[in-house]
């Protein structure tokens, strides 16, 4: 695979508020055209990292590079940003807001207006274009804000918790739009604490906890490197015999009333597992999967993994 140029790079960025170091030496690269996931629980320092990338606040230490150069104010126009905290001009009309925010990103007012109409169409909001923001539902306002962040077709879009507060239908809509934008060549940095979403969309992730990197890389490699597979099981029989037979080779065991899940060590193949099943246990369903990101994160943070 040809190594792509990093469109965005952070180099040891740090930020301290008061006595609390919120971001502590975060370094990562986002290559052009990637869908990059910035992951971590609430309060991990994701938003502060993003604000430093956007130049809304300056890092105490370290640098942010955009297209290989130190990011200056000029780069603001090439980056789209959906902040985690939602808010728009309540008294203004939808189309006016989009036109204004597009123009701040360097679009002409007429092309901002035209593109905004197309996007409102795409997001099922075209009838609301002359409605005041305050009259929109929360989900609608979020769509408008999302449009504002990508209206000027930025090279890089930074979406902070884009799915928060959306109903399932709109979540699917957002997902498909995000994937579409990626298809069109936009680089997307998606920040979320919702691991399943990131897992579905991103090809590369960077996980932070308490301001520090805990895990990063290509998603398949991370899963591979986690060193355990997740087994889901439906069975009949006495579960305690399972523990007796497999002992240390299975972990995080949760068994109850005929179903359960646990991890098996790498190298301990599903085939071997079935052959060693104790008598009296009858398996009706069995799946062996790469672990979900959520579990990898939890065990990484707890420090009980070698991943």
């Amino acid at each position: 695979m040809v190594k792509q140029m990093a469109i965005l790079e952070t180099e040891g960025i740090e930020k301290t508020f008061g006595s609390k170091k919120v971001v502590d030496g975060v370094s990562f690269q986002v290559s052009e055209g990637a869908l990059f996931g910035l992951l971590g629980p609430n309060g991990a320092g994701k938003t502060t990292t993003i604000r430093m990338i956007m130049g809304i606040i300056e890092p105490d230490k370290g640098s942010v590079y955009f297209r290989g150069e130190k990011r200056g104010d000029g780069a603001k126009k090439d980056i789209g940003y959906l902040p985690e905290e939602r808010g728009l001009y309540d008294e203004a009309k939808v189309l006016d807001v989009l036109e204004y925010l597009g123009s701040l990103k360097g679009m002409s007012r007429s092309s901002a207006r035209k593109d905004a109409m197309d996007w409102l169409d795409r997001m099922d909001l075209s009838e609301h274009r002359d409605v005041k923001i305050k009259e929109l539902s929360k989900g609608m306002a979020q769509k408008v804000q999302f449009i504002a962040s990508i209206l000027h077709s930025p090279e890089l879009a930074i979406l902070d918790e884009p799915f928060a507060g959306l109903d399932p239908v709109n979540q699917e809509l957002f997902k498909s739009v995000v994937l579409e934008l990626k298809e069109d060549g936009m680089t997307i940095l998606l920040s979320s604490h919702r691991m399943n979403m990131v897992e579905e969309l991103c090809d590369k992730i960077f996980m932070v906890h308490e301001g520090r990197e805990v895990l990063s890389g290509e998603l398949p490699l991370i899963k591979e490197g986690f060193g355990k597979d997740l087994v889901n099981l439906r069975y009949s029989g006495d579960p305690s015999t399972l523990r007796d037979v497999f002992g240390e080779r299975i972990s995080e065991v949760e068994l109850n009333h005929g179903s359960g899940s646990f991890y098996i060590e790498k190298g301990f193949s599903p085939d071997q597992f079935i052959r060693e099943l104790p008598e009296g246990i009858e398996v009706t369903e069995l799946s062996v999967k790469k672990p979900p990101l959520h579990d990898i994160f939890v065990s990484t943070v707890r420090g009980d993994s070698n991943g």
Partner: protein
Amino acid sequence: MGKDTLKVARWEFLQNVRSKMFLILTIAIPILIVVVGFVPNFLAGWGEGQHLTLYVVDRAGVYSQLNKTLEGVEGKNFSLEKASIPVEQLKERALGKEIDGYFILEEPLKQYQSTPIRIFSNLDDNEGLIAAGKTLSRVTGQLVASRVLAGEGYNPDEIFSLTRGVQFTPVKLETDDRSFGEVFLPFGVAIMIVMSSMFSGSMVMTGIVQEKKNRIVEIVLSSISPLDMMAGKLIGFALLGMLQIGLWGVVGAISLTQIAGVPLGGVGFFQILYYFLYFVLGYLMIAALYALLGASSRDLQSSGQSRGIFVILPLFPIYFSAAIINNPEALWVKLVSYIPIFTPTMMLMRSGFGGVPVWEILVSLLVLAVFVYFTLRLATKVFRVGMLMYGKDMSLGEILHWAKS
């Protein structure tokens, strides 16, 4: 850079010129001024100011002479009309209030030196009739006297001019002869400037606090620099303030010249220029202070609390306007004029009441400009940091810390 400032300015102007707050303030204030200023006069003048038409049943042939004499009388509240219908009909019409009233003049005129002339009327407003009666008795008295004397061989014209009363006209003593426009225009403008800069300034602050609260500031600051954002806001609201003053000015000028009949004359180019500069600098000073407050406050309540002092300070000189009128040359008046927060109000009032030398205007503008420059710098620095500081008010120590950085 400059482009982004203008984009923000345009947006702020267009959004806020349509806002309820701006409409209410801009329209309500002139209405209030007009109501407070003119309605009491209007109401007070309602009764006695009403003009009466009195019919004269002239059986002595003196109507034309009487009317001619009356023409020379100033400030009368009635006019005469020669009755062309019978007395009975006049009476009916007076009873029905179709006419204000009538009176009869009969020969011999001499009788009126002992008997009063009765004015028949059914009007509720007695004061108007009494005032009319006073004037009539004086004029008719002269007429009767001249008639009687003429009957004894004197020339009526000569007699008339001899019997004319000596009139007294009040003349107000003034120190100079400056027009109303020169005296009260600066005072009115001073108040307008302070009010408009306060309205616009508080709109800057409300906007900032709201944007901070709903985080739209993040979207804006991820597109443009904080300096452009703040400069754009200040310019947008300056234009709004100028529009407001313009509207007030037009309403004020029309009210003064058309309704109250006061000439504005004597306002020169230099005067307009320094009004403008005092407005722009005064506005920038207040708006920058408000922006600083807004950016360093958690929400509107907390900014409102600390705002109190800024609302009162620029208004302070107006409370002392009486003292300033009495002695515009006093040392304390001069000194206070150079405290920047009071400068626009003080200097405009002084230039109205006492006349201020040009050098003082220039020096005060310079002092003000320097102060505004530092206020803006401070506000920009605090703005940069404060806009992203959520959930708490900045302490004075923090503000100073960021100011020094």
